[in-house]
């Protein structure tokens, strides 16, 4: 009997062992090593401690621009990719008697497409030739053909947002639909009896009950937005005009891998971590704030 309980005591550790091992190899060791590297100058063959010099070197307009781009992208994607899919999901859930499964699947398809393929399509649809699709469409509205890829900062952000909207709306619709299906129908029936309008029902019943999903989607959007790299790398191969498409991870990639400055790249990585933590803390504060409001 005693040996049985002992076995049972050890068994849980067998199951979680892979996580504990990977925690050390994939997260902890690299994390410590990146903190150390951020205080070093690393040239092949020799490594030298240089104190905070890497961090001081981050006072670089290019880096500030990268941070700005990433933060603006994150804020814009959150402010588009939460309300739009939420309203769409609500429509799919209640207003359509048929076809809702079909539309759900159609909107989901772009998220299956790899970012290289999606980026290539965007490059070609938004090509600078005045024959390219978007330029022919805007010509109908008497707007001159634009050099989208090599245009201004607004052009660059616009392309990134289009790409994000195309690829992520469908996934977020699925998240919101799964949340909507947990809302009991009786609530809406009760509201109907009270004579509530569709908009009122959405604001008073749907939105508050979707809060867990909103929190979830916000969290993954913060993470995805701040660490965005691939979209911009594929649209501009790392060299956008005036760094209009440069992101924080793009800066890590450029410094760390293309210029071989592992120390500086590490410092940037840690700054990114701080920004992510900062955003998440704000989010948590807002959540707590809302909860208090709800209790009153």
């Amino acid at each position, binding site marked *: 009997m005693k040996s049985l309980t002992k076995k049972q005591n050890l068994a849980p550790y067998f199951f979680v062992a892979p996580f504990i091992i990977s925690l050390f190899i*994939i997260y902890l060791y690299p994390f410590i090593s990146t903190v150390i590297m951020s205080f070093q100058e690393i040239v092949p063959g020799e490594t030298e401690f240089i104190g905070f010099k890497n961090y001081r070197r981050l006072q670089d307009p290019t880096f500030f621009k990268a941070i700005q781009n990433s933060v603006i992208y994150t804020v814009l994607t959150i402010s588009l990719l939460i309300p739009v899919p939420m309203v769409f999901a609500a429509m799919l859930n209640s207003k359509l008697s048929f076809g809702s499964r079909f539309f759900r699947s159609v909107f989901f398809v772009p998220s299956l497409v790899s970012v290289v393929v999606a980026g290539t399509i965007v490059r070609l649809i938004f090509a600078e030739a005045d024959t390219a699709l978007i330029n022919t469409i805007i010509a109908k509205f008497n707007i001159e053909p634009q050099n989208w890829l090599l245009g201004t900062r607004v052009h660059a952000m616009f392309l990134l947002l289009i790409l994000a909207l195309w690829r992520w709306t469908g996934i977020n619709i699925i998240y919101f639909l799964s949340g909507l299906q947990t809302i009991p129908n009786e609530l809406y029936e009760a509201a109907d009896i009270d004579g509530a309008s569709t908009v009122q029902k959405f604001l008073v019943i749907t939105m508050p009950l979707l809060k867990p999903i909103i929190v979830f989607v916000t969290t993954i959007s913060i993470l995805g937005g701040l660490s965005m790299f691939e979209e911009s790398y594929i649209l501009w191969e790392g060299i956008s005009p005036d760094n209009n498409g440069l992101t924080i991870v793009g800066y890590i990639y450029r410094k760390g891998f293309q210029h071989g400055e592992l120390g500086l790249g590490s410092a940037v990585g840690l700054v990114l971590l701080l920004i992510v933590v900062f955003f998440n803390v704000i989010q948590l504060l807002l959540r707590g704030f809302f909860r208090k409001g709800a209790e009153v």
Partner: protein
Amino acid sequence: MIHEQIKKKTISISILVLFSLLAVVVLFPLLALLMSSFRPGSDLMRFGISIQSMFAEGKNLDNYMGLLFAEKALYPFWFRNSIVILLLQTTITVFLTSLVGYGLAVYEFRGRQLLTTLVLVLMMVPLQILILPLYKMMISARLMDTIAGVILPFILSPIAIFFFRQFSLGLPLDLMDAARIDGVGEIGIYFRIMSPLLLPAYGAMAILEGLKSWNNYLWPLIVLRSNKSFTIPIGLNTLLTPYGNNYDNLISGAVIATIPIIILFLMFQRYFISGLSSGSVKG
């Protein structure tokens, strides 16, 4: 009352029209990609994707022939690598994360709370901040340009662990006690009794992790160095160069990379969608 019904119907029809238009907008880029892939890449280079080029005469399979059967065609290698990595990464990830998630859910033990919190915290840490030290590690472990190197950082996906934990919380624990009385060991309980019950969760995570692996970009871009060891996304990206893009291969390669996934999605839609949504509801 009748007035009310007419109003409802009008709303429902206008939403239907709105969604139909959106569906066209959403699917059009993929259709444009497919149709352009039968035209010479030089067209795309000059005109971009345009209505004229989509519907132009002179469609042929030259791009596909060149991509797959040219003498030094690399695409077949990339395709094979992507498949091998997909299968290995998905199998290993799903197996290991299910063990961990299950362990965290069904056992009381010292450190359980701490480990669960760590899983949640790691879900919020972008792995991108660790690419430089991981890169150094791959060099010293001699894993650069290998499949193991591509897979290693992703096998313990915290999101998958969390998903399996949530799923395992709903397992019938009485079955475990019954099995113990019959003398089944703890590991046997997982494999013989619980794993059949975990099947829907395996399916959901296999799809999610498979998709991640198939489209994985940044890390393979760093690890893979020789053009025969590239995966499809990395290989396709080499066709985009500052000196001009090889659209012949890029477009046909993009189509071949996308079609299998869309077919799989159409076949297993339900699992795709349940896998995605079950992760979020309790999150």
